[in-house]
């Protein structure tokens, strides 16, 4: 794995047991994703894009082959090392935002930093910076139920970005948003990708997202059926 490669999969296979047999979600995937890429795994439902994202995020492990993420092998990684990898280097953005309902916007964004044991002042500054990136400094005391869908997803982006991870994994981030909010969100992520050189990997089948991607990896029935660089 060269210095610029952040994700590398080699003959990656993922099978799920179903009844007496199994279902193959990913079949022999070989991929390289470099630092600072803005890439999407695109395909219909059941094509394996979320499974791929989960393995890269060390939330699941491969059945065969391996995935190297930031130089760490996901195969047999172990729960403790996996949680350290996620805690320090990976940010997640979910389709349903997954904000903690009882926390304020500030506390939601602050949460990943609490796990990193930063000082109060450093944490506060980092949270305010992250909220500024997504344009939500006026909502620090709001609770998630007081936010619109677009605002909630921007909080989720701030939460994913606050620790300045090398990699952000976004699973259908605009699926619950209207067109205007989707574009706002994507422009925010695009800006962060350019300014902080953070690698973004999306799982999506939304055309609005696809238009922003710089590289598109097409998946179908667990196989890579296409891989194109988009010229802007």
């Amino acid at each position, binding site marked *: 794995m060269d210095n610029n490669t952040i994700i590398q999969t080699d003959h990656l296979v993922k099978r799920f047991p179903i009844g007496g047999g199994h279902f193959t979600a990913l079949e022999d995937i070989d991929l390289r994703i470099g630092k600072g890429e803005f890439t999407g795994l695109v395909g219909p439902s059941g094509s394996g894009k979320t499974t791929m994202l989960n393995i890269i995020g060390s939330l699941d492990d491969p059945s065969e082959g391996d995935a190297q993420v930031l130089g760490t092998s996901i195969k047999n990684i172990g729960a403790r090392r996996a949680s350290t990898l996620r805690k320090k280097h990976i940010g997640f953005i979910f389709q349903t935002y*997954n904000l903690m*309902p*009882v926390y304020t916007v500030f506390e939601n964004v602050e949460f990943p930093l*609490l796990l990193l044991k930063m000082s109060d002042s450093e944490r506060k500054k980092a949270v305010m910076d992250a909220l500024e990136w997504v344009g939500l400094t006026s909502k620090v005391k709001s609770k998630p139920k007081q936010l619109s869908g677009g605002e909630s997803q921007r909080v989720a982006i701030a939460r994913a970005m606050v620790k300045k991870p090398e990699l952000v994994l976004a699973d259908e981030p605009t699926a619950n948003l209207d067109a205007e909010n989707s574009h706002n969100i994507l422009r925010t992520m695009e800006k962060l990708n350019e300014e902080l050189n953070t690698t973004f990997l999306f799982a999506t089948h939304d055309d609005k997202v696809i238009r922003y991607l710089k590289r598109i990896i097409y998946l179908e029935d667990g196989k890579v059926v296409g891989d194109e660089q988009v010229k802007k």
Partner: protein
Amino acid sequence: MLSIKLAIKNLLGAGLRTFLNVFILSVAFVVIIMQNGFIQGWNKQAKVDVVEWQYGEGQYWHENYDPYDPFSFQDAHTAIPERLNTARQEGTVAPILVTQATVYPEGRLKSIVLKGIDPRQKTISIPTDKLVREGEDVPAILGSRMAMNIKANVGDYLLVRWRDANGMFDAKELKITGLFRTDVPAVDLGQVWIALEELQQMTGLDNEATLIVIKDQSHAEMDLAGWEFQDLDELLYDMNQMIKSKSVGNAIMYLILLALALLAIFDTQVLSIFRRQKEIGTFIAMGMTRRQVIGVFTVEGTMHAVLSLIVGAIWGIPLLLQLKKTGLPMPEGYDQFGLPMGDSIIPAYSLGLVLVAVVIVTVTTAIVSYLPARKITKMNPNDAIRGKIQ
């Protein structure tokens, strides 16, 4: 620290459900302290009273004496040891002669225990100075319960019939010269007290007694022929057993109350883990280990106990202090059961009692919080993130 911070936020976020759980648990907490306080208070009060009024610091019993078998009284008497003469003069030992008798209040018949005690004694609190004879009449004193039962008052005459040492019946009128109020029914109910010498003369048992009460330990454990020493442990054995059984009964009651509160917390925890799957999945995605997540939920559940201590203190301390001031009034007739008990029981609280209650409530709450939290280890984080029912 993180777990506690998260737990507080989640508990406050849960609002009314948290309040109800905490309140029920605080009731259990206060009731445990209150119930045990009353048991300890009664224990203390009863023991002090029986020592003051009945047992002294121990008793010598005639070897045939059985306080629970009135038939034993006939043969349970012997000469008072001469070694105790000085102490008798000083009033620091009180020989008592016991015999069965019958009184006839208002023409009715009632079996009693007639007891003779030295009027000069200073060993127990019975006001025996009223037994000093000042004329022809034989003075007698009664406890207030006995007086009420036979409708007797100071100045009344009471016909008493007894059998002497030879088995001959005789009868005499006693003049009631005093009534005393005590919380110890054993020296009151069914008892008539007269001067020791009077009873010795009436029964023909000169210088004899059935038992000897001692005031201090210097007269304990002496080797007196025909007498057996009963220390306070032996004398209080029945009472200790009774208090122990009462404690068990109370424990069952507060355990039921505690179980209800814990069931509510268990239920809340199960519901919470089921409802907050997305949150659990998100915690894990952000880098928390499963053990940390279990810790958060266990601490969250256990915080119910901490909050209940605070809530319990807010409403419980004034209540417990008020009860300590006023005591718990006992219903009329309770004293007829033969238990040493005042008109009201004053609870006795101790630091140990409070600490035990705190430990019981906190540990059991932590256990019922941990049990459902273990379910998290079986969760698939990918499904949890999506909030899929597992």
